[in-house]
């Protein structure tokens, strides 16, 4: 056991190794999305990328905030915000399970010395109108990865489908380092001095303060107001996009295509994510009554589904134009810039 511990990676080495592994297999290594999300699935690099026909491979760390899961930093296994390593393989290669097992090898797990099982576990997110089929991967009795074949997202049947691998980084690292508390995980080790920085030093204050905020301090009224403002703006954007589609007949067809191509659906999606996060805070705060709850989830889903539909349309109509119009419309292309994960 000590052998496992002594050469086990630090938290950041674990992340680097996994990123390197997938980079070497052709994935884009993205950076964490900078809007609050409850899971890596909600980042646009997953939610929007899995829609439509374009192949894509991406891996990124995603800090995932779940206000109700906060424990004031007192529980050794629970966090308000944990880190996921999220991988999307679209379409999934035939040997995707082998590829996954290799990634475990890459972080120093010799599978011949361990017990690995793929146990049925299907995934569903009512808020995103998304679901998939798959397993929880059990390593010596510990769930280390969620392995999902996405079937539907934003209410859209996927074609092709994607595989989503979600590595729970804290638990995986605690396993590798053989520590019982997340806060004892060695995050970094100075190669010269050997000085260690522990997870608790980096993150404990986060956990304490956000637990207080989410459970006690968040102002219910203004959180509701934020929710409604974001929802309202998001809805209006979705409506404006669909108005563009209907206006096709009038005016110059190319104008419509251009308008569509530069339409800020990504902005609308950020607003939807914010709604979801405010909902989670209100929920943790105990501010959502029974009768409201189902309704509020449905409201967020309506946004997500509306954006997914519009996004499919945008991809479709701009995709057709891209090649022939590339030279003619550099401005539109430019606009999307680096932010847009558009293929």
């Amino acid at each position, binding site marked *: *056991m000590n052998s*496992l511990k002594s050469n086990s990676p630090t938290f950041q080495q674990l992340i680097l190794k996994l990123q390197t592994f997938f980079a070497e297999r052709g994935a884009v290594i993205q950076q964490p999305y900078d809007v609050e999300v409850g899971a890596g699935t909600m980042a646009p690099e997953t939610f929007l990328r899995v829609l439509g026909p374009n192949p894509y491979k991406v891996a990124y760390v995603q800090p995932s905030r779940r206000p109700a899961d906060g424990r004031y930093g*007192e*529980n*050794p*296994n*629970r966090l308000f915000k944990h880190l996921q390593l999220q991988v999307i393989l679209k379409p*999934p290669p*035939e040997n995707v*399970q082998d590829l996954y*097992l290799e990634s475990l090898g890459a972080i120093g797990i010799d*599978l*011949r*010395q*361990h*017990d*690995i*099982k*793929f*146990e*049925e576990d*299907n995934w569903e997110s009512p808020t995103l109108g998304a679901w998939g*089929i798959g*397993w929880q991967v059990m*390593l*010596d*009795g*510990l769930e280390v990865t969620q392995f999902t*074949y996405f*079937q539907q997202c934003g209410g859209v*049947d996927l*074609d092709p*489908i994607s595989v989503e691998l979600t590595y729970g980084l804290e638990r995986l690292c605690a*396993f590798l380092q*053989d520590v*019982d508390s997340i806060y004892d995980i060695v995050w970094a080790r100075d190669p010269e001095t050997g000085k260690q920085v522990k997870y608790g030093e980096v993150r404990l204050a986060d956990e304490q303060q956000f637990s207080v905020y989410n459970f006690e301090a968040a102002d219910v009224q203004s959180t509701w107001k934020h929710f409604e403002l974001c929802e309202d703006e998001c809805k209006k954007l979705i409506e404006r996009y669909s108005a563009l589609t209907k206006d096709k007949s009038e005016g110059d067809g190319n104008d419509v295509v251009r308008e569509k191509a530069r339409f800020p659906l990504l902005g609308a999606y950020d607003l939807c994510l914010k709604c979801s996060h405010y909902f989670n805070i209100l929920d943790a705060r*105990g501010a*959502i*009554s*029974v*009768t409201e*709850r*189902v309704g509020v989830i449905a409201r967020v889903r309506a946004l997500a589904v509306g954006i997914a539909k519009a996004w499919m349309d945008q991809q479709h109509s701009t995709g057709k134009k891209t090649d022939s119009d590339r030279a003619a419309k550099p401005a539109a292309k430019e606009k999307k810039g680096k932010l847009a994960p558009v293929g």
Partner: protein
Amino acid sequence: MPDFLLEIGCEEIPARMIDAASLELRDRLSALLQRERLDPAGEISHLDTPRRLAVLASGIPASQPDITEQVNGPSAQVAYKDGQPTPAAHAFAKKVGVDVGKLEKVSTPKGEYLAATVKRKGRTAAEILAETLPKEISSLYWPKAMYWRKRGEVFVRPVRWLVAMLDEQVVPVELFGIAAGKTSRGHRIIGSKAGSETGSVAVSKPSAYVEALRGAKVLGVAEREQLIRKALDARTRTIPGARWREDKPLVASVVNLTEFPSVILGSFDPEFLDLPEEVLVTVMRDHQKYFAIEDANRKLLPHFLAVLNTAADSDGLIRHGNERVLRARFNDARFFWQTDQKQTLRQRVDLLRNVTFQKDLGSYYDKTMRVQHMASWLSETVKQSGMAVRPGVVHKAALLAKTDLTTELVKEFTELQGIVGALYARVQQFDEDMRPDVQLAISRAIYDHYKPESMEDSVPATVEGAVLSIADKADSIAGMFALGLIPSGSKDPFALRRQANGIVKTIAEKKLPFHLSEIMADARGRYQGSEAEKKFSNAAYAESVRSFFRERLEFYLKDARGYAYDVVSAVLAVDADDVVDAAARAEAVKNVRGSADFESISSAFKRMKNILRQAAEKTKIVSLRVDPACLQEESEKKLAALIPQTVATVDKLRAAHDYEAALREIASLRPAIDKFFDQVMVMVDDDNLRANRLALLQTVVKEFSTIADFSEIVTEGKESTK
């Protein structure tokens, strides 16, 4: 004759689905072979693991037998004109592929017809299997399936390889973009030597398949189960006096999670034994798939058994990892337990306002209020019937029963709902002057109030628990039925049938003085004036609930109690509202039905009812009462005279719930009734006479059908009189 092997290589199939799919695949293959006249000489065997479904049919014909058959054509008249074959004859000859000259004539009842003897060559098994198997495989039923290549093409998980062979030959099956071959795959990790990447297993011929897989560390189901059980025993024996808790569903589950199992013994800190056993076992069993170990007194020991999907744990790494996970889980549970104590159950009642019961039926707080009132009313009813019950216990237990839904422990381990509430109710300080035995009784009632969770499960141990359980379930059923969410066919998302079964079983076994219609009317009444009521749409509430419960009672009497269907029909035809009474009457009917008198009486009743029905159909008049002056024959006079005294005796016995004696009393009418039918004609022409005799029959049927409708009893065709 060659052997046939089909192996569907798949990514891990959910453990719960493997057995049923395996059986279906065998059935499909067997039916296919029979249909195609390729019946195997030997057995159809199978080998299933999470990664494969394989079937092996030993000794099937290499091809279908040739068939010689006679095909009939046009009539001879049409086929020949002036002795020469007509175009019709030529066309027929062409169709069957026979020379015109070789056509035969056969005579049929309709005249002479052309015929040809056709020899049809049997097709090869390989050809047939390659053609038909894809459809059979694609048709396998899965509770949940997925697509991975294209939409519409679904299976439980992606299929990655296929093996299809007739002896050494590949059967060219193609499916999911995969061509079948002769290469299988072994165990994911230990199926090949370290360093060799492939993991592939060459299968030389079907009969070598099982051994080839064994070499690659893959075993069949039966062998895995045997291995697991032996290993569980062996590991347990290392602890003196210990035994592992038998758990068949768990064994079945781990058998189907492994290809090459072994077992390790792990331990945990005995300090965790302070946590309730229910919590510890749930964590081990439901979350980790570990077997619990107990001592001779059934007390839990600080050990567990984990089944691995690998050969050995030589460095103890796997044991260490599993112990670590369990420790974290137990720590969590302990943490939740302690956190939960910060708020008492009583304080949590208000939190139930934030827990949805059903979207249209409001919160668990609303439900708690309804159930509390109903349970109090029910316990009053019980008390008035003379049974011992503590209404105070029921009242308090009903208030607290659902509060554990707000606890961390139940949020984490939902299967412990009820149990956690009970455990907290036991340890928390209630009112200061509450007697410990009362507190214990409250805890007990909460503990049991989800019971019985199936027909096999036991009912609540105490009357208080039973009353609470019934009120809780009745409230759910009433709300759903009023909303129109009535179970139909396989659709019963709220498990209302199970809950109704629970009510019936609990009333029957606790012998509670409840009438189903009254309970359900009361449960419906508790929604009066609520928000939920505005959504109610079922105008035929009482009737739909009545027929629903009649079915449940029928199911209970037949399937749980084992009464014959005709006995149950006879009993429920009289009344299906009083469960205890119906069960008692069924028991009485069962006990007397074998006797000759009763058989004969049953036949006689059937006959009487037939006569009365026919009379009604022909609109014949039935007198309001039997007029003694109108009685002619000796036997009808005698029967009429017997009725009042028999009715009096039967009523007295019935009131004393001595149904068996009452039935014997009715059966004692047999000689009189037999004689009546021997000597008296009912449907005579004389209107008065007929009306009076019909009245006599009507009286008999009416007065003596208060325990069971005898005409429902099947009498093996024996008639009492001719």
